[in-house]
Each structure stands twice: as structure tokens, then as C-alpha cells.
């Protein structure tokens, strides 16, 4: 009989339930709660970095050293191949590699953002956005390590800077902002389809060669327009150009803001639709 009584209680209190929130509202809730718990994702990101320092004094500086070696070797070789002064080419290459490393690690670690978080996700309720921001912040911290190389090169070659150089910070901000939707989208897709992660990393390698990093856009001559098919170029140029005294052309700005807007819209639709499925995918 007690069972029947319990049932009646639920029926009478059924009106007391808050109306079920829609998927869109829940997705917004997740994003807001995720961003608000900044101390959570920033601490988790730092914990990841400390993990890399553990058992190794240099930690992520290994990546910085390998970047310095790569830039040094490629700089001498390619300035000879392209017949460009090393004083022009090496700063260009260094900044290109610096921002490219950030972009490519955002993409590649984005693919595993949710898969890596499996053990947390299945134990504790936490906004999905936290896992995304953790990945973005971790890559930003590693980027800061690599900045040492770029700063050294800019100083050694005495690349002139002006107030316009600060536009580069906007470029960096745009890269990180886009890192959020890229991580969220790839994190979901790659949790659901496990073979997409490796495909993404091969594609990223191809994009490295298609993007003007080890070559200069001028080399394209009248085929310059092909760069406007490559969204990575826009972000890279806004971050790199100002530090080299290049003015950013309007189409590049348009492309960067367009990609940011469309990226967030598409990702949000996916997120609203599939957010609740993520724990079953990981």
C-alpha cells in the first residue's frame, strides 16, 4: 500500500516540477555556467601544465626548444631557397610557426577534449564548456612558453614595432575565441566517431603547407586569391602581420569575423542538439 501512497504524492506534486528547459536553454546554461567557473578550468589547465613539468625540469619548454631548432634550421634553408634576406625571413617564419603551433594544437587537442575528460565526466556533473575551456587555456599557456623564441628573434633582428603591432593581440584573441568553437565541435564529433581524430591531424599537416608559413604570399603572384579559400590564413595574418609592419587588408578581416560568426552558430546548433549525448559517447 505504501507504494500506492507514494505514487499519489508524486501525481499531486507533479505540477510542482519546473517546466523542462529546452535543449537551447540547457546549452546556454552550460556555456554560461562553464565560463563562470573560470577558477575551475584555469586550475585544471594549470594542472595539465604541471603534469608536463613532472619528471622533466624543462616541461613544455621542450616544445619551445624544438620550435627554436625548427625555426633556426628552416629559416636558414628557406631564406636561401626563396632568395629572401634572412633578416626578413626569419622573423616572418618564427611568428608564423608560433601562431601556427597554437592553431594546430587547438585543433588537434580539441579532438580529444571530451574523450580525455571521460573519467571526470562520468563521475561529476560539470558543464561541458569547462572541458573545452580547459583545453583552450592549456594551449594558450604552452603558446606563452613559445613566445620566448619569437620575442628573442624580434629583438635580435630589431624588427621595428609601432602601435599598430597591438592589433596582433586582437589576432591572438580571435585565434583563442575560435579555438573555443573548434574544440567544442571537434570534441563532440570525435567523441562520437573515433576515427575522425587521426583524419583531422593529417588534414592539419596538409594545411600547414597550404598556409603561408614557410613561404611568403607574394610568391603566389596573380594566384594570390587562393589564400582567401583558407580560413587559417586570415587568423594567422591578423596575428602575425602587425608585428611585421603589415597592414591587414579588409577581405582578411571579413573572412576572420565571418568564420568566427558562422563557426559559433553552427557549433551552437550542434551543441544544443547533442549536448546530453556526450556522456554516452565518451
Amino acid at each position, binding site marked *: 500500500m*505504501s*507504494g*500506492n501512497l*507514494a*505514487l499519489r*504524492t*508524486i501525481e499531486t*506534486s*507533479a505540477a*510542482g*516540477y*519546473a517546466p*523542462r528547459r529546452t535543449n537551447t536553454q540547457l546549452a546556454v546554461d552550460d556555456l554560461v555556467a562553464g565560463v563562470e*567557473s573560470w*577558477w*575551475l578550468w584555469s*586550475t*585544471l589547465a594549470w*594542472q595539465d601544465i604541471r*603534469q608536463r613539468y*613532472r619528471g622533466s625540469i624543462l616541461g613544455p619548454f621542450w616544445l619551445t626548444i624544438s620550435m627554436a631548432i625548427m625555426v633556426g634550421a628552416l629559416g636558414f634553408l628557406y631564406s636561401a631557397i626563396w632568395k629572401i634576406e634572412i633578416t626578413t625571413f626569419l622573423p616572418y617564419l618564427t611568428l608564423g610557426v608560433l601562431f601556427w603551433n597554437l592553431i594546430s594544437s587547438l585543433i588537434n587537442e580539441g579532438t580529444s577534449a571530451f574523450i580525455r575528460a571521460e*573519467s*571526470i*565526466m*562520468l*563521475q*561529476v*556533473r*560539470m558543464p561541458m564548456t569547462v572541458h573545452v575551456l580547459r583545453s583552450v587555456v592549456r594551449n594558450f599557456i604552452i603558446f606563452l612558453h613559445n613566445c620566448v623564441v619569437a620575442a628573442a628573434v624580434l629583438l635580435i633582428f630589431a624588427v621595428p614595432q609601432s602601435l599598430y603591432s597591438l592589433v596582433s593581440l586582437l589576432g591572438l584573441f580571435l585565434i583563442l575565441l575560435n579555438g573555443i568553437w573548434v574544440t567544442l565541435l571537434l570534441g563532440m564529433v570525435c567523441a*562520437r*566517431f*573515433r576515427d575522425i581524430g587521426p583524419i583531422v591531424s593529417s588534414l592539419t599537416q596538409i594545411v600547414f603547407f597550404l598556409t603561408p608559413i614557410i613561404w611568403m604570399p607574394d610568391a603566389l603572384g596573380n594566384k594570390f586569391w587562393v589564400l582567401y579559400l583558407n580560413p587559417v590564413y586570415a587568423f594567422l595574418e591578423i596575428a602575425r602581420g602587425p608585428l611585421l609592419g603589415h597592414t591587414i587588408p579588409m577581405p582578411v578581416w571579413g573572412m576572420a569575423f565571418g568564420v568566427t560568426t558562422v563557426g559559433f552558430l553552427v557549433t551552437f546548433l550542434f551543441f544544443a542538439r547533442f549536448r*546530453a*549525448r556526450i*556522456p*554516452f*559517447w565518451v
Partner: protein
Amino acid sequence: MSSIRLSNINLRFPLYRDSSRSLKRSLLEAGKAVSRSRTISTDGGHTVVNALNNVTCNIEHGERIGLIGTNGAGKSTLLRVLAGIYEPTSGDIKVEGRVNALLNIGLGSDPDATGYENILLRGLYMGLHPKEIEKLAPAIAEFSELGEFLHVPVRTYSAGMGMRLSFAIATATHPDILLMDEWIMAGDRRFLQKARERVDSFVSRSQILILASHSPQILAQWCTRLFWMDSGSIVMEGETDAVLKQYETGEPPASPSDTQQLTTLAS
């Protein structure tokens, strides 16, 4: 005052990747006593697990609830729904109070981080600010009795040590509702006794304990009311002794809720 209200909770999820392995695993989890067709079905090529079927229950403050059933009966899934990890496919859920869940012995711990670092990490996961965790850390360290081991990576811990740390963290944060899965068994007898005392004081402050286990002994000791789960449904609920007695027979009583659930599935 903490309370839990569940009304007609259903949870269905598709199994996607590596379907043969997942299917095999889920069949194993479903257990031999389970009629498989009720738990697993196929829908448009996907294998769908009906993890919870029309689960309805009311839990009031101060209750110690046990979930009993075979592996794969839906105990852990129900705990995850209560913890807000899985969102039900349909049904209404209302949980009042702050929930801490001890679902897995690892509790998302970082195996390479030390015990102290894991106190910080897990405190963060539970929504605490680093400052609050700092204040709680000495009490957690003391209750866990891990001493110097807290400076060592948790990957070196035994199951019992991991459990002690997890339990100490989860209960030190004064949750209103504590969810625990059956690995609580990993502790030694003395620590289990200590853990029970802490849970007793916790429940006497009008908080709720929900413990999933397939061990009648543990449930008889810890719980006042039991839900017997089978194939994702509550097939019987009542006083611990009554449910355990029936559970020993292996046959759930034919109840109105059971038949109702069968007709819902058939429709």
C-alpha cells in the same frame, strides 16, 4: 531540507562505436537473470539500451536508501541520473540539495598527481573554490588516515586507500545528498565502521544517502529502505528486511507498477 522526486524517468541511449564489443559488454552487464529483449533492442541499425524504464520514486530527507539488483540492473545508471550526469530521455526529476557522488573509485583522479593534489582537484570538481578546499584539506587528510602517502602519486595507492581518500573528500564537503556505488566494499572493516559512523551522523542531519550494492549484508547494515532494480525498473521497494527477504527468493512480486511498465514497453 533535501529531497528527491523522480517521476516516470526513462533513459534510453544508443550504442554507437565498436558495436560488437559494446553490445557484448552490455549483454554481460545485463546479467544472466535479465530478459535481454527488454533491456536491449535495435532501432534503425543502432543498438538501443533501455537503461531506465519508468522509474518513479520519492526520497525524503534523512532517508538511507539502498539500490539492490544484479549487475546491469540500472543501479549505477540511476545514480548517474541523480548526480545529473545522464539526462533522462523523458520524465521529471527534482533533486533538492547539493549532491556528491562516489561512483567510481578513481573519481576522475589524476593518477600521476599526489594525494594532496587530488584533494584539490576533486574539491574543484565538486564545485568548491580552491580557498575552501585548503581549509578542508587537513580534516580530509586526517579522516583518510593516509598520512605520508598523501605526498605520493595516487597511482601507487591500493583500492582501499583510494576509497578512503575519495570517501574522506566526498563527505568532508558536507553534501546534502551522498550517492555511493558498491566499491565502498574496498575499505577494510575498521574503515568501513568509521565510514558508517560518519554516514550516520550525516543522515541524522537530515541528509540523504543512496547506496547501490549487490551485497545484502552491506545494505542491511547501511540502509533503511531498499529499491530492488531489475532491467532498469524498480520492481520492488520497501523496508530493508522485507525487500531482502523477497530478493533472496529471486522473484520480484507482481506489482501494479511492473505490469504498467510492461504495457508501456509493448505500446
